[in-house]
């Protein structure tokens, strides 16, 4: 990848940072509660994908490296999912009692 393309990715990251700041100043709860967090996470996820694919060269790497990258997200998903199963069911009570 040549330098102009690297600069292009860098520009995307800078724009993402500015967007994160801007999104934090606007109350998005009118869409649904916690929408601000979701927007911030989406921007962060996009930025991270750019870093991984281009700065860390995953885009040009063999399939095994792709598998490793996907596996790390899968593991992150496990952590979030199993933690959330606690938070989302904590207030239900014992057998709906």
């Amino acid at each position, binding site marked *: 990848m040549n330098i102009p393309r690297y600069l292009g990715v860098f520009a995307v990251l800078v724009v993402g940072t500015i967007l994160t700041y801007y999104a934090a100043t606007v109350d998005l709860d009118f869409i649904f509660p916690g929408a601000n967090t979701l927007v911030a996470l989406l921007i962060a996820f996009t930025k991270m994908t750019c870093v991984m694919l281009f700065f860390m060269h995953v885009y040009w790497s063999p399939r*095994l490296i792709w598998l490793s990258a996907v*596996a*790390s997200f899968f*593991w992150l998903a*496990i*952590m979030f999912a*199993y*933690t959330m*199963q*606690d*938070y*989302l*069911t*904590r207030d*239900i009570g*014992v057998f709906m009692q």
Partner: protein
Amino acid sequence: MTADYSGTQKLNYLNNGFTLKSWLLTKDHKRIAIMYLITISLFFLAGGIFAATIRLEMLTPASDLLQTGTYNKVFTAHGILMIFFFLIPSIPAVLGNFLLPIMIGAKDLALPRINLLSLYIYWIGGLFTVWALLQGGVDTGWTFYTPYSTTFSNTYVMAVGLGIFINGFSSILTGLNFIVTVHTMRAPGMTWFRLPLFVWAQYATSLVMILGTPVIAITVLLLAIERFAQVGIFDPAIGGDPILFQHMFWFYSHPAVYIMVLPGMGVISELISNFSRKKIFGYEFIAFSSIAIAVFGFLVWGHHMFVSGQSIYAGLVFSFLTMVVAVPSAIKMFNWTATLYKGSISFDTPMLYGLGFMGLFLIGGLTGLFLGAMGLVVHLTDTYFVVAHFHYVMVGGQVVAYLGGIHYWWPKMTGKMYSEFWGKISAMLVFIGFNLTFFPQFILGYLGMPRRYASYPEEMQVLNIFSSAGASVLGVGMIMPLIYLGHSLIYGKPAGDNPWLLPGLEWRTSSPPPTENFEVMPVVTWEAYEFGEDSGLDLEAARAREAAKV
């Protein structure tokens, strides 16, 4: 030091340079392993001294030797040193580092400089932690649970946390190095299903290391952010949740149990098969059970949190998955037992440790199921039953396997044989002392004695005296190898290249191995644990050894 027929000294990794610089700047995986061995032994000694202090305090019902606050710091220091600086790195960093490249027919690990960097990071993390412990220590327990580590902390939590944070990178780099090495450095003919099971176990462990360790680093970082920037993460007073800490901590720390015990299982697979002189039963099942343990190990962390306030539905899922993760461990136990059946068993020192592991890990594993059952655990949580359970797994499993592995590969690492007599005495003392120390703790826990208290009711003293007496026997058993293995370095008989007459690649190079591991790159044409004609073994010598045993 070995000599060839002309009488000149053969160059090996030990005599290839004697300066301090030649050791501190080495990229040779074997020298790095030896430096790990020395450091890890020192941490084990320090952790052992703290353990001895705990058992001395528990001799009497009153807290008379230590004040309660000091007692908290002592058991915390014991846990931190033993877990983060001994158990986790011991087998991978010492035996894995030394043997993994040799067992797959490689000259070195794929990333030798990264390997040296891992050692330096381990040293820096260790020194930092020891400094913090000496400054005043930590009283939170090795788990750093909030709010002990946040709101109510008045000890060196962040300094010790930083030491563990730094040390984590050593684990990650070692795991990464092993994975790359197994993928890219295998000798011609060394297919995946010809890999020794020790290598499979190291590979599975490495997966857990690189997937899990970053999470503990992030958790410590979040702890620091909350303490220094007052961002509400774990403290409910500022919008956090203390149970979130437990989720994140155990997401790493339960798989860390498998970082500790999986390599031990790899050692045991080698010992059981080789000292039964029989191809291991169900090679593929054992190999894949290591991977299954690595994967399922990530799905069960909530069983540490049944009484924490975690949702009962989450508890149900974690309880079920805890039963599931017992299956691959059971596969290994059954296959080892089947390997022993009609084997030509030698009761050499490493095998005594191997058999000891099977008995102790069986008890440790089965009592784990007690603690995975949601009803029973309400009674047993935070009692000595838990202490006994995890010591049966960690010490009875991992430490015994580590000692077995050290004795097994000592002749290869040093070129010298140790005293079999003292080795056997030591192995038996460890087994007896261990059971005397920890079995009474199952009963104490069942009777309701809570862990982490310096005092206890008088009616529990007899069992505590048994436990402390056992600890002294165990201590003697653990110190003995230091003496006779050290003695063997100077006075031991030359071991020869293949003292146990085994087919593995590590036994087909000289003892100690040359810097490049093999004088000629090996080509593997035999299956793992092949004791027949195809293995290229000196069968006559093997038969003579069998006859001598009879």
